[in-house]
């Protein structure tokens, strides 16, 4: 019961607090990191969805396949994909931040005034 509450709460909390980080950000590097904080909520969500009490790693032949259950390997595969996506998006947005720092002379979102209306 407690584990259930903690897992779902932490997952939701991370997504929202990451979004709050973007909303209140004064530095684009902070914005990009806040975005990956929001994404880490999805890792917690997925791993929690695939967890089983007392289950072992999803490797056949280790710990005796068939004798004891394994945790859901699918969510682990999804998280692996998710992590790769996170890394690539972070790299892309940081590359943009470097160029913004050069062209705008600032990385404060409040000072970027090139687009409006």
């Amino acid at each position, binding site marked *: 019961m407690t584990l259930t509450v903690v897992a779902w709460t932490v997952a939701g909390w991370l997504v929202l607090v990451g979004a709050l980080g973007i909303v209140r950000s004064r530095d684009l590097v902070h914005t990009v990191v806040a975005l990956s904080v929001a994404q880490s909520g999805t890792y917690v969500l997925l791993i929690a969805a695939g967890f089983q009490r007392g289950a072992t790693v999803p490797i056949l032949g280790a710990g005796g396949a068939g004798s004891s259950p394994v945790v859901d390997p699918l969510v682990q595969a999804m998280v692996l994909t998710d992590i790769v*996506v996170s890394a690539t998006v972070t790299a892309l947005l940081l590359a943009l931040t470097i160029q913004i720092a050069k062209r705008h002379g600032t990385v404060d979102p409040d000072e970027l005034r090139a687009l409006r209306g």
Partner: protein
Amino acid sequence: MSRLRLVLFGLGAVGLAVLWVVATTGLPPVGTDVHPYRDAAVAAAAAHATANVVSSINFDQRTFDTLGEETILLASVVAVTTLLRPADDERVEPPDPPPAVLPATRLAGWALLPVTLLVGADVVLHGHLTPGGGFQGGVVLATALHLLYLAGSFPALQWVRPTRWAPLLEPAGSGLFVVVGLAGLVVGAGFTAEFLPPGVLGAPLSSGTVLLLNVVAGVGVGAAVVSLLGQFLRQEIVIGPGAAP
């Protein structure tokens, strides 16, 4: 304006929190033993003699997702290379002489290099048996190369010239991944289908295409990480203001 922003966020966050409670209270408790997909995936992995079920999902049952993931990586390398190119008003300067590195750092770098290469290769080649695989091993392999940076060994790096081959190796790896997928189509078994003998569960040469795709992905991911870090380092070290020559 920023007041409005916070108010909007607050209302949205409260609303989403309520929805989140509605959603999660209706779910089975965390730790439940009902996992129908797990049961099916474990059986499927055993049928194809792949000990690591996560690898079986990534490189056999749901290879298409991994192909997409590999393509995202390729796209991000091309994208970062495009975004960090020298602009019209910038030029590529010769790098400053490397700063002196502590002998201890140098020693650590050189000592860790063979170990890291070995671990990386191990993680890739045993990805079908033990935790790991092409993605994880590829990152470890890329780390090995960057130990040379840390050790301050610029002559060694200039000899290796990662910025030359990595941007070519990464599309080559992605392309090979597609080719392996298409090979299944050519032999008539369907796209991304297993077309190699699966072997015996737990043997070094088992799991058919999973091992092959792990190697291809390891090459692609390693080259991708080298290219990405290389672009950021190049931005820092050799690109400076001034008109292109």
